[in-house]
């Protein structure tokens, strides 16, 4: 599993302030922490960056590259900022993201070709977010055709099926799982990637990590290649790097079996089992899923 650390993000007060002040220290700290935790890529999310887009992105890229060799994933909806960042990247970067909308095809996708970067390609198109696995397939097929015409091979494409919060639309989470299993047949050579934290948006803060980690184990089994994750979650890294085989095995059992005997399991493992069951759609999600 390729892990992309998400914490250098304009939604964080610390990072947002650091960007405003052009203060490298907080950025360096976040880089260090995520690197130590074993992230394979670092996501640099500068947001829509209406003010001085190129300059802001350049500063961000320079600051990060100044203290690490980890390759970068550039995350912005602003094409000017994106291009400036891609130019600055020393290593092959990941363009996060383009979509199936006409606008994105015109302004974002060509940048991936121009700078030889990887391309995160989302299933969103001009109709909006696809509502099920088949619609996602339809959308991504069209985008892949277009990418092919631009000369971007499947190997450079990281498909983002767009993960929805389980508390907002549980069926979309099931559709996500159905879809990633289609990807090898649908788009041979392409990778799958997701914004994992989306899954738990709206859930009780202290339980978000549990939801995210459990889901990552589930989709890893279904062939998920990459995920944008909380860069500081050490347990998440342990889980997907094979350091917690028993827990992983339990989660797989919760996926396969209707009833898993919870007696004798630690509290943490019981929680993983219950969480897996909810994520597999065996019961309707609620914020109190652990208490039932």
């Amino acid at each position: 599993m390729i892990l992309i650390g998400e914490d250098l993000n304009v939604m964080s007060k610390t990072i947002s302030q650091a960007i405003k002040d052009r203060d490298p220290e907080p950025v360096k700290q976040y880089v260090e922490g995520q690197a130590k935790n074993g992230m394979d890529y670092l996501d640099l999310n500068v947001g829509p960056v209406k003010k001085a887009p190129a300059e802001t992105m350049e500063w961000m890229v320079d600051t990060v590259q100044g203290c690490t060799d980890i390759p970068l994933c550039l995350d912005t909806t602003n094409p000017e900022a994106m291009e400036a960042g891609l130019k600055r990247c020393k290593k092959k970067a990941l363009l996060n993201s383009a979509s199936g909308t006409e606008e994105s095809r015109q302004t974002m996708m060509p940048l991936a070709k121009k700078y030889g970067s990887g391309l995160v390609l989302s299933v969103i198109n001009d109709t909006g977010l696809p509502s099920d696995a088949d619609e996602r397939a339809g959308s991504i097929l069209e985008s892949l055709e277009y990418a092919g015409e631009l000369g971007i091979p499947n190997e450079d494409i990281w498909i983002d099926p767009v993960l929805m919060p389980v508390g907002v639309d549980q069926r979309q989470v099931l559709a996500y799982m159905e879809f990633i299993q289609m990807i090898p047949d649908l788009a041979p050579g392409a990778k799958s990637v997701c914004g994992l934290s989306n899954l738990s948006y709206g859930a009780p803060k202290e339980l978000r990590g549990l939801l995210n980690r459990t889901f990552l184990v589930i989709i890893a089994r279904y062939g998920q290649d990459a995920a944008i994750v909380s860069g500081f979650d050490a347990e998440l890294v342990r889980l997907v790097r094979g350091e917690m085989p028993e827990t992983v095995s339990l989660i797989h059992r919760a996926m396969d079996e209707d009833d898993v005997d919870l007696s004798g399991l630690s509290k943490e493992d019981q929680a993983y089992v219950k969480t897996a069951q909810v994520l597999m759609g065996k019961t309707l999600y609620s914020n109190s899923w652990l208490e039932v």
Partner: protein
Amino acid sequence: MALKGAEIMKKLPKTNCKECGFATCFAFAMKLANGAAGLDQCPYLSPEVRAELEGAMAPPIRLVTIGTGKNAVAVGEEEVMFRHEKAFFHAPGIAVRISDTLDDSDIEEAIERIKGLRFERIGHELKADLIALSHDSGDRERFEALVKKAAGACDLPLILVSEDTDALFAAASLCADKKPLVYPVTRENMEAAVPRLKELGLPAGVRGNGLDDVIAVTTGLKAAGVEDCVIDAGAGNMMEGLRDQTLIRRAALKKGFRPLGYPTLCFPCNMYGDKYEEALAISVLMIRYAGIVVTSLMEKEFIFPLLVHRFNIFSDPRRPMTVEEKVYEISNPDENAPVLISTNYALDFFIVSAAIEEAGIPAFLCIKDTGGIGVLAAWTSGKFTGEAIADFLDRHKVEQKVAHRKLIIPGVAKKLKDELEEELPAWEIVLGPSEAGDIPKFLSKESNA
């Protein structure tokens, strides 16, 4: 589509030879499922597999079109029992009935009234979409005169209703080019009806006495090559109609039972003497799977609520409903009235505008088009940023509507405040409440400040 891509895939060669024009068999299967490719494109399907796929790929509920041109009504091709499972795709047609027992001037008036049953709601047109012409007089000439008149006077699709099969088809041949639905086609008149249906190319309004009877008719019609059917199992009241139409849809969708795989037709106009009861029955039957409802109601007060009801239920739950982008004036605001801004997600609009109305404080509610998505998501995707809003205020000349320069923004959009302060230095940006329910209190305080 009946078959999903993954199921079609099972029948394909799986060689990824690309001769169909797609990179993989799976891609081809997805396109087939969407109707974006044809079985012809794969040279490696055996005739048996082809026939099997063709049959299985046909939608479980046939799509039947009545009428022609831009007013044609298409019903059927539904995929789910409950709208929240995916969506309902074809709203039922509402047919207003005119009887041939009316005299000429009443008929003319009726036609005009029906044509006038059109309304606009949040940018969409809602209208009664068919006219049912009923042969009750026993006089064929009267019926034909009615049909001629209606066909000539308006473009709405027609349903011809007569227990006299000859009269029915004689009238149908007068307006066959308008592709009317002819009703009833029954076990008794099927034999006579089939050649006429085929010759005129018309859809059949099948009536049976219960489901078994309907099955006998549709099976016979299909064998004879008539496949465009709309079916009526003869329900005499709302609850029976609910039962019949539920069982029909279940049979079609869950059992793949083709003899009932057709859109339905019902006649609330024959079920109740009371207008209110008829209207309520229509509202229920439209939700519970009617393809066409035939009504006697022509009054705006009765039809308009039913049109809004249909519009609501048949909206696509997967797509947020939106309202028009503009500056809405609530309770006659003057130049000192507060100015609020929000996104064009319809539900939010209704809630916010209702809260403002309830507060009893006149205000300008600026609604910006964000494709129907809410405040935070719209901000993230650049549709509700400082720049976008400044542009809105400019385009809609908001500065000219008010003497003050105070803009109230949704309380959840804290990041937006800074952006707007930069974009609009002449304006004071005020964070409003996060919950619409707090708007009245907030506006009260503001107006007293």
